[in-house]
């Protein structure tokens, strides 16, 4: 009896020591899960998910405080990837957070801009250049299309322009080879 208790106690201490040692030895900096989630998020920093940016949303998902279907720019594919990472069932996008839109960039109408700098302060990625009373311009290559600059503009001079397909951006479509569809066209 005493021997059994003794053995158990020694085991407990030994395992505890090993666990303690590994906790120090293999310490992981930061929150690796939030990091991985953040890598999947599209980094639009649009806040449609209800969090002030992609990183806070990622952390909220990691903590289980937010659902995986709150990111419209990520789309269904983003939800699927998150579901895969977290080992949960994918679900449709939560419409209350918005619906996916074609990829766009903001455009400032130079004739209307009054140079108020409000949009510059709103831009989450510093993609607007300009100074007070000077006309502002979007740095197209860095604009994420988050639309956060639209509401603060007092003169509504910012519009979202969908990225047009041109030759360097063109890509092959999925070849459609579905027997059912072929049958329908043949019968028609």
């Amino acid at each position, binding site marked *: 009896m005493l021997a059994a208790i003794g053995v158990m106690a020694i085991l407990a201490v030994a395992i505890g020591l090993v666990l303690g040692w590994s906790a120090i030895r293999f310490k992981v900096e930061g929150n690796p899960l939030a990091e991985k989630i*953040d890598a999947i998020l599209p*980094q639009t*920093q649009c806040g449609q998910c209800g969090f002030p940016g992609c*990183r806070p949303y990622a952390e909220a998902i990691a903590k289980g405080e937010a659902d995986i279907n709150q990111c419209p720019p990520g789309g269904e594919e983003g939800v699927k990837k998150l579901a895969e990472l977290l080992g949960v069932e994918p679900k449709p996008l939560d419409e209350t957070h918005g619906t996916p839109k074609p990829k766009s960039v903001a455009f400032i109408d130079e004739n209307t801009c009054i140079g108020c700098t409000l949009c510059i302060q709103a831009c989450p990625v510093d993609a607007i250049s300009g100074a007070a009373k000077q006309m502002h311009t979007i740095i197209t290559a860095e604009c994420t299309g988050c639309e956060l600059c639209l509401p603060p503009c007092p003169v509504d001079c910012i519009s979202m322009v969908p990225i047009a397909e041109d*030759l360097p951006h063109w*890509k092959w479509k*999925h070849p459609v*080879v579905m027997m059912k569809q072929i049958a329908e066209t043949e019968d028609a």
Partner: protein
Amino acid sequence: MSRELFRFKGGVHPPEHKAESTSRPIHAAPLPKKLVIPLRQHIGNPAKPVVEVGERVLKGQMIAAADGYISTAVHASSSGTVAAIDLQPVPHISGLPDLCITIETDGRDEWVAHAPLDYQAMESPQLRMQLRDLGLAGLGGAVFPSAVKLDPGASHACPTLIINGGECEPWITCDDMLMRHHADEILQGVAIMRHLLGSTEILVGIEDNKPEALDSMRSAAAKLDFAVEVVKVPARYPGGGAKQMIETLTGKQVPSGKLSTDIGIQVFNVGTSYALARAIHHGEPLISRLVTVTGHVLRPQNFEVLIGTPMHTLITLAGDRDGTTGVLMGGPMMGVPVPNLDVPVVKATNCILVKSKELFPPLPKALPCIRCTRCADACPAELQPQELFRFAKAGDFGRAQEYHLFDCIECGCCSYVCPSHIPLVDFYRYAKGEIWAREKDKRAADLARERHEFRQFRQEREKKEKAEKLAAKAQAKRAELAAVPAAEGAAVSDADAKKALIAAALARAQAKKTDTAPKNVDQLTPEQLHQIEEIEARRTKIRELARKPLESEEKKP
């Protein structure tokens, strides 16, 4: 010639259809009224226009300069006036337009001043710059800037130079005709390549279905003062692919993900070699090429065509027929359907293939894959096409990459043999495109994340700095005020001190407001000043407009 040849794996034997277009001599296509010259005719950065609309240009004049290292210049194919620099339809599978320079020709075909280059006297880098400015790009199909390929680099020499006269695609005969009639000039080009690359072994690979070209090249090679071995290789598609030609002639394989120069071999098409000879010995930039016009036309033949000539003029020249079901640029295995016949001939145009129902029956409907692995047997890249198809179809691009999707050369052998008639190559192109697009998105996301994080850091820093500054200022002011009451007595309380501070700040702010004037307004013309006034007036109006709805809303309740 008893060179040991090696057999590359896979490949197919489609009907050749070469005889149709080799019976007639090469004709020069007439000068068209309008030349449309795309700026993106080669791999790499598109050329940058150096002429303006309305400018008169001469034949051979550079109209767009190379932009960066992997790029090459573009030239006017004839003399005339620049009519437009805008988006025009180009021969691309997407059917999307691209930036082109349109020249209205004047019919005089007046050359710009040009002279032969003494390449042996020139430094190699300087010579390569010249070649880049002469618009040279690979004419075998990939249109890779030749100047880049002619750089053996500091570390690797290029002992073996292969001149590719394979031309394995059915229907196409422009290389065959070039070798029959311009063998000497091709080999002049080879001499220049040899000079630049320092090659010691020079092999010319020609498929055995071109006996005339073989004879012509052999007799030309016999006249040279250096050794060129003209080798007859068995005709099998895609034996004219660079990697396949290398294996057939040397038994070596280009390591996956590497260049042939990494194993000391460089490959050039015979057309490129000819263009190089024209460039060096005549100073002529790449403004024309041989184009096979064949298929469903009355007189299939080869034309010497100016770059920028609309394709329909060539089809009319070869005799168009009823029952045309489409036109391809290139051969039936790797060619690109042309969106409309106004598109110009570009540097990559080796063949214009007119389709008809009889020559190209509509492809049968696809059935599911039965994993018969005929595609794997036919694949010259030795891949497992049936697995790649499965992954591409399912959108499992990661696995597709693991199964070496990017080693696929899109030769079309797998689709050709597929008993289920699945357009396999389309799936690979789709998967490659998606992977590239995703990588691009990923880079954009990384950039956005970085910028967002920096912004947050900056805001934090600014907040901190501001707070520190304010604290320091307040400290200073208080000390100052504390010094004054010492003289005036203790009448001024602490509250008064604060009041004074606020008043001072307000005054400062007021002053600043009136002070702020737009920058860069000195030394402006009266018109510009007037414009600024107009804008200012508009702004005040807008500000009022912006205020009004607020006021009206306030009044409402």
